[in-house]
């Protein structure tokens, strides 16, 4: 810090320009160089595995004391995918933070000075975060499946094969669901531009509004609830479809449409608003 004389500033002769691929690499560097990222991803990964193992152990232990009705209610795939419900929160919080962290620290000004067209930054953030979430969640749900099955197998209970109809689809659907939750949360963060507000908005949509629907008359609730983002998205990893729920494909596509809508709104606002 003691240099008072100014040495010659090195020139950079090579032609430079901004490309989408370069912005994506930049976003990857940003993403992996924050401690909060590593923590959230690590916690999300571990919880996705830990909860199914815990539920499998508890189920195996309590099986002898369960009623027939209670036993019939247990499904091995529900146990294997129990962690998805927890992982979605970790991934959603991180998704919000990926963008609101830049607003709260002022980094967004540096980002948009480097890439003043702005939209490439949003696409790059979404691509990096979606890819990382998916790549992390696939092994997590598969390990959770194998682990919970191994525990249940020791007690000769609730065995199911990945080859059974719909099982592999549900497993991968769980990973896709968490990935899309991340995309949705990131878009919410870009719209709200504030960490607390973004997380609150996400929690309202995913965890507060669905139970509130029970206040409605049952027929209304049955008609409306299946179209909520969370309920539509959950069909991606549900093996059985009850009367008042969408099927896998319509549910998944509707959730994808919600994500696309949130991303579109985020994109329009990102370009229009002052930073």
């Amino acid at each position: 810090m003691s240099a008072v004389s100014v040495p010659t500033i090195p020139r950079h002769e090579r032609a430079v320009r901004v490309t989408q691929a370069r912005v994506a690499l930049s976003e990857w560097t940003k993403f992996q160089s924050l401690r909060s990222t590593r923590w959230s991803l690590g916690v999300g990964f571990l919880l996705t595995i830990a909860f199914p193992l815990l539920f499998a152990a508890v189920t195996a232990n309590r099986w002898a004391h369960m009623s027939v009705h209670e036993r019939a209610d247990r499904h091995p795939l529900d146990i294997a995918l129990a962690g998805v419900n927890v992982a979605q929160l970790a991934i959603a919080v991180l998704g919000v933070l990926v963008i609101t962290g830049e607003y709260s620290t002022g980094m967004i000004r540096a980002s948009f000075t480097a890439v003043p067209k702005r939209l490439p930054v949003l696409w790059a953030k979404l691509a990096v975060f979606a890819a990382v979430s998916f790549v992390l969640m696939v092994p997590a749900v598969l390990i959770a499946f194998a682990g919970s099955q191994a525990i249940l197998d020791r007690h000769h209970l609730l065995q199911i094969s990945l080859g059974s109809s719909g099982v592999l689809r549900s497993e991968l659907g769980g990973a896709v669901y968490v990935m899309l939750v991340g995309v949705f949360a990131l878009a919410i963060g870009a719209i709200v531009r504030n960490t607390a507000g973004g997380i609150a908005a996400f929690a309202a949509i995913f965890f507060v509004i669905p139970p509130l629907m029970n206040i409605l008359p049952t027929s209304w609730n049955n008609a409306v609830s299946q179209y909520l983002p969370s309920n539509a998205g959950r069909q991606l990893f549900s093996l059985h479809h009850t009367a008042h729920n969408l099927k896998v494909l319509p549910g998944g596509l509707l959730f994808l449409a919600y994500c696309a809508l949130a991303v579109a709104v985020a994109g329009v606002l990102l370009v229009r608003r002052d930073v």
Partner: protein
Amino acid sequence: MIEVRDLSKRYGEKLAVDGLSFVVRPGIVTGFLGPNGSGKSTTMRLILGLDAPTRGDVTVNGKHYRDHAAPLHEVGALLEARSVHTGRSAYYHLLALAQTHGIGRRRVLELIDLVGLHDVARKRAGQFSLGMGQRLGIATTLLGDPATVMLDEPVNGLDPEGIHWMRNLLKHLAAEGRTVFVSSHLMSEMALTADHLIVIGRGRLVADTSVEAFTQRASKRVVLVRSPQVEQLRDALVGPEVVVTLVDRELLEVVGLTAATIGETAAERGLVLHELTPQQASLEEAFMELTRDDLEYRAGEAAVAA
């Protein structure tokens, strides 16, 4: 080269920038001077396209900033508000910004050395002192080897050594033929570094002139006169271009006359003088004078319009 044409920005009720037009030329240091809240930072954000103008237009090297293929190669900017994620190290901060343009690690490391952050490059930027933060900002500014360097209050919070370093850097950058545009609310700072001045007050252009011309034009001569006969002396001195203020029972402040003229007038009338002190208005006072005039002018104009 930065060209600002009839630029205005309104935030709600407040007109932060009001019909500003000026050109910043390459090869010299252009100072952007104005009191706090006069619209300097807003103008810089408008130049970078971070905020959209309400009216008017601004181009950098002939294009809107956002239309350049390699924006960091056109303008390197250090904004007053910090623009660094506090959880990321200086190295990764610079690397991420460099990567958007395909600039490599080597240049990142070179610049870290250049600004003297080598020992702390892996520390989180949130732990940096103000001075270290400014040095990181300078490294960011120089990443793309920019034709134009734009700095908002770069010496704010720096220690004397850092201020000296910054002044040399600015002159050096201009000598390399770059466009250097630097804002400050301190006239004295600008007098040391700038060749040309753009002065604004309340978002409006007050002066677009060389530093020399500005100080000459703005500085008025003030003479302090002490006399037991202040009343008679005042009557003798007052004229159309002369302002005489009674400071206390025996002291007059005279603006618009030289000490010699005052002495001669007193001798003609046979008035006693105890003190006759010419005072050169400082640059700071000259600046205050100019921007205050602007405020009064603005208030008068508003009244006429209403």
